[in-house]
């Protein structure tokens, strides 16, 4: 996925110009290739982060939940039945797997699965109580635009949650990042993704940030809207 990385780096360098469709196409192509083995290859290492984020969603008030980058729907069975979940993703192949999961597990609280660009959502303002984006922020071409859209579709007083790998500022985590680098590239992440790429300084100061095992490789960030 060096091509995807390349195009995203170019796009980020040019922020805030609109990205070319090539970026979305490259990300979509990566996930089309990975859809079949995503759960086996990545489901394990990301499981704790996913569980923590869903547990936090379940504890927060409000029933209307948006999962941005729902993928194959790995998180969907873990939401409380009282949470009404809508999931979006850019990859039709991943969504097809999510739909199969919803049918097989009879997840009656999943209101819908939609193919959508997280940076230009087809939802009105203030329609959700909670939006959660797991392993998404470092994949989208313009993370700040993702944040702006999540802010828009969540009501004031609602909650935004992110689980992501953020670059280690210091310490011995580099070897884990190095070990995961091939998978990271394939999934369109980049190991040098810094919190500042997503958050304005005032957001970063307000966000509740907690490390997630294994090895604190992932971070759960909770930002009140």
């Amino acid at each position, binding site marked *: 996925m060096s091509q995807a990385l390349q195009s995203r780096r170019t796009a980020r360098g040019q922020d805030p110009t609109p990205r070319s469709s090539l970026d979305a196409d490259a990300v979509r192509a990566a996930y089309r290739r990975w859809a079949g083995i995503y759960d086996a290859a990545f489901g394990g290492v990301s499981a704790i982060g996913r569980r923590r984020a869903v547990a936090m969603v379940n504890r927060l008030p409000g029933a209307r939940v948006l999962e941005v980058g729902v993928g194959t729907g790995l998180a969907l069975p873990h939401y409380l039945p009282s949470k009404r979940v809508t999931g979006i993703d850019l990859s039709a192949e991943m969504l097809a797997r999510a739909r199969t999961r919803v049918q097989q597990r009879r997840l009656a609280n999943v209101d*819908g699965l*939609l193919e*959508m*660009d997280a940076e230009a959502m087809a939802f009105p303002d203030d329609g959700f109580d909670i939006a959660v984006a797991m392993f998404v922020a470092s994949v989208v071409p313009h993370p700040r635009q993702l944040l702006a859209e999540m802010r828009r579709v969540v009501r004031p007083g609602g909650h935004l949650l992110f689980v992501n790998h953020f670059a280690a500022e210091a310490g011995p985590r580099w070897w884990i990042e190095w070990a995961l680098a091939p998978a990271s590239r394939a999934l369109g992440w980049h190991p040098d993704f810094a919190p500042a790429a997503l958050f304005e300084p005032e957001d970063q100061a307000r966000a509740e940030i907690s490390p997630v095992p294994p090895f604190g490789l992932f971070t759960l960030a909770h930002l009140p809207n």
Partner: protein
Amino acid sequence: MSDAKHEPQTARNAPIDPRLLEILVCPLTKGPLEYDRANNELISRKAGLAYPVRDGIPIMLPEEARQLED
């Protein structure tokens, strides 16, 4: 499309959940959408686009939408 309603309902032409319709807007204009049941499309008059619904999943991407003729 006059016999559309006599087609067996397969995954491909599965209609959209009405609850979903209530929470969707055009991703470009953020304006309202109309559901064209016969063609299984979501119409944005303001944008002049018809968003397809495939296998019950609305594709809310302008680059995948059909241009409406006027």
